């Protein structure tokens, strides 16, 4: 079976005009949003992975004074998605904070914005085992979970190697590189073969790992497609169209 079967025949109505790509993932309809978030319409669930909040200040502490706007920028984009879709459940799929000290460096205003995001809905931090205690101790709004089952899907931060039908994960920060003639571009991308899905990083400063990297190989039995984030829509690209670094 080709990953192309995941592409939805007959587009579903876009809840907001953002150029989403609709796919059927392990039997569940979902929209791959231009923001890099995943929208599950039946569960009214919005999923964003790898926010890496306070990455800028983590570098600053080590002497590289990156602009301190990454947390605000990431939260703004997340707020825009929440405003557009009004999800019942907001899932942050792990690596929400860049490092162990990030929560301590979070500005009060940013903490208030996180709290506002949790208001009127369920906020879940699917952080994987290692961060659970940390998050619990931080008195953040919402609830910390290890994994999450939704319809035919299972949401977790780090993808399991080998077959995992229905898995939705982050962690790897996939991006796609396309070369045509003498032009090339490198963009964040979803990767899916119709059975499982890897989300791109949502955080403003989160780097990317080329989809052709060996780290992705154990995840897909056959070549996945890349759903590449453009300026105004998501472009489905065949595996063959992608270049390695």
């Amino acid at each position, binding site marked *: 079976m080709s990953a192309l079967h995941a592409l939805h025949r007959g587009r579903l109505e876009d809840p907001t005009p953002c150029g989403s790509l609709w796919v059927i993932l392990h039997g569940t309809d979902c929209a791959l949003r231009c923001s890099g978030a995943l929208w599950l319409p039946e569960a009214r669930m919005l999923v964003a992975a790898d926010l890496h909040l306070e990455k800028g*200040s983590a570098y600053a*502490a080590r*002497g*590289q*004074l990156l*602009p301190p*706007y990454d947390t605000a920028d990431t939260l703004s984009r997340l707020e825009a998605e929440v405003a557009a879709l009004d999800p019942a459940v907001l899932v942050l799929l792990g690596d929400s904070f860049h490092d162990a000290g990030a929560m301590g460096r979070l500005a009060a205003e940013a903490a208030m914005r996180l709290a506002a995001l949790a208001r009127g809905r369920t906020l879940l931090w699917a952080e994987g085992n290692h961060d659970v205690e940390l998050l619990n101790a931080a008195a953040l709004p919402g609830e910390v979970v290890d994994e999450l089952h939704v319809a035919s899907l299972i949401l977790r931060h780090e993808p399991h190697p080998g077959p995992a039908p229905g898995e939705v994960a982050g962690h790897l920060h996939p991006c796609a590189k396309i070369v045509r003639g003498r032009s090339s571009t490198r963009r964040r991308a979803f990767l899916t073969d119709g059975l499982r899905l890897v989300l791109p990083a949502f955080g403003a400063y989160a*780097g990317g790992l080329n989809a052709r990297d060996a780290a992705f190989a154990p995840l897909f039995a056959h070549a996945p497609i890349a759903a590449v984030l453009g300026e105004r829509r998501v*472009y489905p690209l065949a595996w063959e*169209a992608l270049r390695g670094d």
Partner: protein
Amino acid sequence: MDAIAAPSPEPRAEDLLPQRFRDWFAGRDWEARPHQLAMIERGRAGRHALLIAPTGGGKTLAGFLPSLIELSERPPSAEPRSVHTLYISPLKALAVDVHRNLGAPIAEMGLPVTVEARTGDTSLAKRERQKLHPPDILITTPEQLALFCAWPGGRAYFAELKVVILDEIHALHGSKRGDLLNLALARLQMFAPGMRRVGLSATVNDPDMLRRWLVPQNTFSLPFEGGGAGEGVRPQPFRETPNEAAPQEASPAPDRTHPDPCPSPFEGEGNMYMADLVLGAPGAPPVVDMLVSRNASPWSGWTAKHAIPDVYEAIKSARTALVFVNTRFQAELSFQMLWEINEESLPIALHHGSLAVEQRRKVEAAMARDELRAVVCTSTLDLGIDWGGVDLVIQLAAPKGSARLIQRIGRANHRLDEASRALLVPAHRFEILECQAAREAVAANDLDGDPERIGARDILAQHIMGLACAEPFDLVALYDEVRSSSPFAELTWEGFEQVVDFVATGGYALRTYDRFHRIVRNPEGLYTVRNGETAQRHRMNVGAIIDIPMLNVRLASVRAKQKVGGRKIGEMEESYLEQLATGDTFLFAGQVWRFEGITGLDALVTPAPPGTEAKTPSWGGSKFALSTYLAARVRRMIAERERWNVLPDDVQEWLQIQSVRSYIPSTDEMLVETFRRGKRCFLVCYPFDGRISHGTLCQLLTRRLERLGRQPLGFVANDYALAVWAMKPLDDLDFDQLFQEDMLGDDLEAWLDESFLMKRAFRHCALLSGLIERRMPGREKTGRQVTFSTDLIYDVLRRHQPDHLLLQCARADAATGSLDVARLGRLLTRIRGRIAVRSLPRVSPFAVPVLLEIGRETVAGAADALLAESADELIAEAMRLDDAEVAA
């Protein structure tokens, strides 16, 4: 003062040269040249001096003579001494060459003078030894000097410095590298207030600009004795405008009407100080010919492939020829083509900046031994290196600027009294006009050159961080020091403070990084680096050259079933290599290679089987744009019919038919032609203003046409013309409106912010200013990694603090460099009310060259177009699959 400081009266060798030196000149049957004596005189008078003398005129010796004399006359000392003379070369190779050449007079006269070179290639052990035992004369590069500025021992090391010599100063000043160098000179002057500055050059278009650049400005408020930061300094709190303490009022300018017992090294008018100017006698005028194929002038292209057999004949007729080209790729291609017809197996070599250093040194050594008949080379051999045997310079494809051409012609024949011979080989018919214009410019010795620049503040940030790593500084004293550096002479206190704030905390409006200061105030109120680790990391990232991220090209070898990198063949642009797929073949180092892949910092290749054609076309066309100055000459030549008769017959015919079928614009007019071809409507115009400003104009015209509903589809630009095509007719436009200067306002802003050029400019500023570190202890970032993260930072910073210092720097760079907005502005002013429009039934003779470039050059578009095209293919594939299912 007079532009030419003619030493008066005529300097006499007896008065100026000690016996030992006179004997040495006599022993070689030489006579000291007047400009060499004038330099000794300037030296004795303690003056800054700029020497302009043609190649072969003993210029380098003239620079060193005052130091050699002074060093030979000083009494012996038991104490170890520090550096007396510092020599700065723009090229490592030139530094090595000068080191070698200086050895001869020192040895032959038996002078008690030690000379050592220090470049990036100098071993660590030797560099350490140089720090403990300084030579009398240290030969080095601007990057090494920047490192000295970031070293705590710098003040003591240079306390006795008497002279700094800047060789090939025209190649140093007009860039960020020049800004950094000039700031370093200001620092040296603080260490050694009596230090003289000496500049050397063969080609200078605006001597007064260089004379200003060379010497300290705004110096009256600097403490000249003692040099301590505390002396004469006005108390200034951080972040406060020093109103009451404006430099003019702070301390009076030294009174220059009284004869000074200790001669001042300055001379100037008004606020600007200038170095003395010493001119060497001009050499014999060069003989410059143009190679024109009879009635076969090409319409387009840039390789001059048609002329290679004639070039080969020219090489045969010469003793040794240098074949200059404008890009490394063209060097590869020409080298390949010459060897294909090299029936006599003449020793022809290849030299460009991407080849492995050992390879280049080998070619240089063979050249020095007079074993080669020709070297195909790029601008890496433009400068300085002295090869007596060269008697012909061939310029393949147009030189694009007259100063560059004169510099290159100077490589032939290092004897002053014999004419240099040069041969220009135009690649197509517009270049024939350009080469003719260049010949006339050379005959008139008219030079183009870099305009005076304003110092870049990303560079200032790097410099200030370096100073903080060396020793604590006082803010106000530093402001004075920085303003003594000519490119920063006009820097305001606010502008300076903004840079210091950037260095300290990143300069963000959101002040959350106050606890992460990179520089901090010590109890004495002086600024110093936060800790040793920060200093160490800064030192790893010093310098102003980062332009192109490169990968090593290595021979692939298989070890444990893994391809690994073997012998290094050279370095190539990462941006080119990452577009190759495994199996692609390309030309490099005179061979065809098969690309195997990239691992880390290495691109792995294997030799392609014999007879394989290089499949992948090029790494970039001409990197130089036609200079403003040559462009004006070309416009004049086209406008003045009586001058056409010097041109080849087919070019004359081309111009004639153009005048019948369309129009020949006068010197101050710009011709615009519109016509249809197939389903497309074309607009072609001919500003002759260089490919960079044309490219920018294309982008802005396209935006306007889009807004006017003309549905533009694409554009292409070369050095002479630009073409835009659209779905809708373009002949009924209001062209005065279309080319209005207001396009440089909102249209430019809107386009610029999205432009990849801005992202690239920002990346450079982020690296040079130290926002992003290229090198970290133990690992080096590849261009790929750096590009990626700076793009993210650019997007975030643009949204949240659009007036941040680095965005200002990036916009300024884009405006002068990669977009040439300044030149575009002059173009639009020039053509206002002077646009000649011709609506034609079909394409004109002038339009052919630029239209032939369609498809050859990439038509720049949004990156999203790339994605859309690729996605279309996927959808096509999806449809095929569906059919198969139906059939099943």
